[in-house]
C-alpha cells in the first residue's frame, strides 16, 4: 500500500528527509499562472481541526516545470503532480505538458473559485490530453460523492483521491470577526476523518478504482480505518505540519495494527469494513418486506 502526503501539506524540497519516508510525493497544486495566494491570516487552529486559506499559492506552470520539477526528480521519489485551474482547458493544458508522473486533479479547492465545468468534464478534457495516470481529488461537500465518483470514472479517471478539505469558519474570541483573512478556509485534521471515511466507504461501493484515502489521519489505526473503508493508498495531511516524523511512525503503527489483526498486508485488509454491509444487503434482499 502506498503512503503519500496530501497535496499542500509537505514541501519535499524543504523537508527531503520527511518526503523520503513516503512512497511518493504529491506536489502543491500547480496552476497555469503564478499565484501569491490569499491574504493573511491564512491558518487557524480550532478545537478539533485546522482551517487554512492558502489559496493555491504556487509559482505557476512554467516555473514549476522549469525549476521545481527537475529538483523534485533529483529526490528519486515517484512524483504526483497536483493540477489546478479555473477551466477544463487550464487543467488539460497542464496535463499535456507533464511526463513520467501521476496526475492528481484538484477539482475541489475550497479556497478559490471553481472551474465552471463539472468534475467529469474536466477529467474528460484531461483524459484527451494525456495518457498519464489521472486521479480525481473530490470534495467531501458533494451531497452524493459516489455519484461524482461514477461520473469521473466514466470520464476516464484512473483513481480517486478522497477527500479535500471542507469549507469552515472560525471567529476571533474577542472581536467575533473571522480569524482568516478570507473569512472562510478549508477545514482539515481529526474532525475531517469521519467525513473522509464516509466518502471512501461510499465510493468503494460503486467503483473498483484505486482510492487514495486522506482526511485527519494521524495514527496507524486511522490509516487502517481508511483501508478498511476501501482505500488502496493513504495520504497524510495536517499531521505532517506538527510532526515531520509522521510518515515513518504511521507506517510502523499500521504494520503493527495489521499484524495484530491477522492481516498479511494492507491490501488484505482493503474493504474489510464492508463485510457487515454485504450481509445486511443479502439479508434485506431475502426479507419478505422487500
Amino acid at each position, binding site marked *: 500500500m502506498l503512503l503519500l502526503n496530501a497535496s*499542500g*501539506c*509537505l*514541501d519535499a*524540497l*524543504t*523537508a527531503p528527509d520527511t518526503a523520503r519516508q513516503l512512497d511518493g510525493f504529491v506536489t*502543491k497544486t500547480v496552476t497555469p499562472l503564478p499565484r*501569491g*495566494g490569499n491574504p*493573511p*491570516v*491564512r*491558518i*487557524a*487552529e480550532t478545537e*478539533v*481541526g*485546522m482551517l*487554512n486559506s*492558502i489559496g493555491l*499559492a504556487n509559482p505557476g506552470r512554467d516555473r514549476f516545470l522549469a525549476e521545481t520539477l527537475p529538483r523534485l526528480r533529483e529526490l528519486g521519489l515517484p512524483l504526483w503532480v497536483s493540477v489546478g485551474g479555473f477551466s477544463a482547458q487550464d487543467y488539460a493544458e497542464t496535463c499535456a505538458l507533464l511526463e513520467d508522473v501521476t496526475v492528481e486533479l484538484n477539482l475541489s479547492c475550497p479556497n478559490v473559485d471553481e472551474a465552471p465545468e463539472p468534475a467529469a468534464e474536466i477529467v474528460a478534457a484531461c483524459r484527451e490530453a494525456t495518457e498519464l495516470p489521472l486521479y480525481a481529488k473530490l470534495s467531501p461537500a458533494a451531497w452524493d460523492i459516489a455519484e461524482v465518483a461514477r461520473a469521473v470514472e466514466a470520464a476516464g479517471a484512473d483513481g480517486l483521491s478522497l477527500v479535500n478539505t471542507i469549507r469552515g469558519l472560525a471567529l476571533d*474570541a474577542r472581536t467575533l470577526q473571522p480569524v482568516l483573512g478570507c473569512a472562510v478556509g478549508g477545514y482539515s*485534521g*481529526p474532525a475531517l476523518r469521519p467525513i473522509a471515511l464516509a466518502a471512501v466507504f461510499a465510493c468503494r461501493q460503486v467503483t473498483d478504482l484505486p482510492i487514495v484515502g486522506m482526511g485527519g489521519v494521524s495514527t496507524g489505526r486511522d490509516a487502517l480505518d481508511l483501508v478498511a473503508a476501501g482505500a488502496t493508498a493513504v495520504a497524510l495531511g*495536517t499531521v*505532517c*505540519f*506538527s*510532526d*515531520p*516524523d509522521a510518515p515513518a511512525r504511521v507506517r510502523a503503527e499500521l504494520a503493527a495494527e495489521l499484524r495484530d489483526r491477522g492481516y498479511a498486508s494492507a491490501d488484505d485488509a482493503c474493504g474489510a469494513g464492508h463485510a457487515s454491509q454485504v450481509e445486511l444487503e443479502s439479508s434485506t434482499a431475502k426479507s419478505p418486506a422487500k
Partner: protein
Amino acid sequence: MSKRELLGVEAAEPVGPYTLLRVERGGLDPGVPGQFFMLEAPGRLLPRPMSLCLAPPGELAFLIDPIGPGTQAICTAEKLHVYGPLGNGFRLDVAQPLLVGGGIGIAPLPYLSAALGRPPAVLGFRTGRHAEAAGLVPNAEVAIEPTLVTELIEPGFDVFACGPEPMLDAVAELCPGAQLAWEAPMACGYGACYGCAVEIDGAWKRLCVEGPVLVAA
C-alpha cells in the same frame, strides 16, 4: 540540524504578563539567535513558533505571551514536543549593534544580547507591567506608550529588531539594512503549509524558511 523531541518543562516563571518557560534541552541544538522552535502541547493539533529567549546549559527557555488556548496550553504543559532550531537567525558580524524590541517581540533579544556581548538595547512596551520583561535584556533603555521605541533609536547603529509589524515597518524606514525578525501564524515551521507567507517588496516569502529574519530594503 533540527530535531523533534518530547521534552520536560522544568519551570514556568511569570515575567509581568508573560511566561518564561524553561524546557529541558534534550538532544536539541539551541541554534543561532533569531531562529525558532515549534512547541506543541499535549492535546493540541498544531504547534506554535517561539524564538529562543535564553540558552542556559541543559535548557532552552522561551518567553511566551499566553493570550489564547494554544499558548496557554504550552505554558501549563508538563511536557512539550519541541522541534527545531528552524529558520534563519540573525547575522552577528556587525560593528555597532543595537537591539530594538517591542512587547513580546523582545523574546529573542536576551539570547542575541549574550551572543553579541551585551550591546545597548531599546525596548518598547504597552504598560509598565509588560515592561517587567525588560529585565531579561542587559543594557536596555525602556519606552512605555505613548512614547514609541523608535524615538529612542540613535543613528549610526547596526539594528536588530523584533516586534509588532507597525514597529518593524517604522524601523525599516528609519534604518535601511536593519535585520528584522518577523512573525506570522504558521502550522509547520518547515516550509510545508505556506501559512506564514508574507508579501514583502512585491515578493511572497515563507517566513519559516526564508525568514524569520529578513534584511530591511
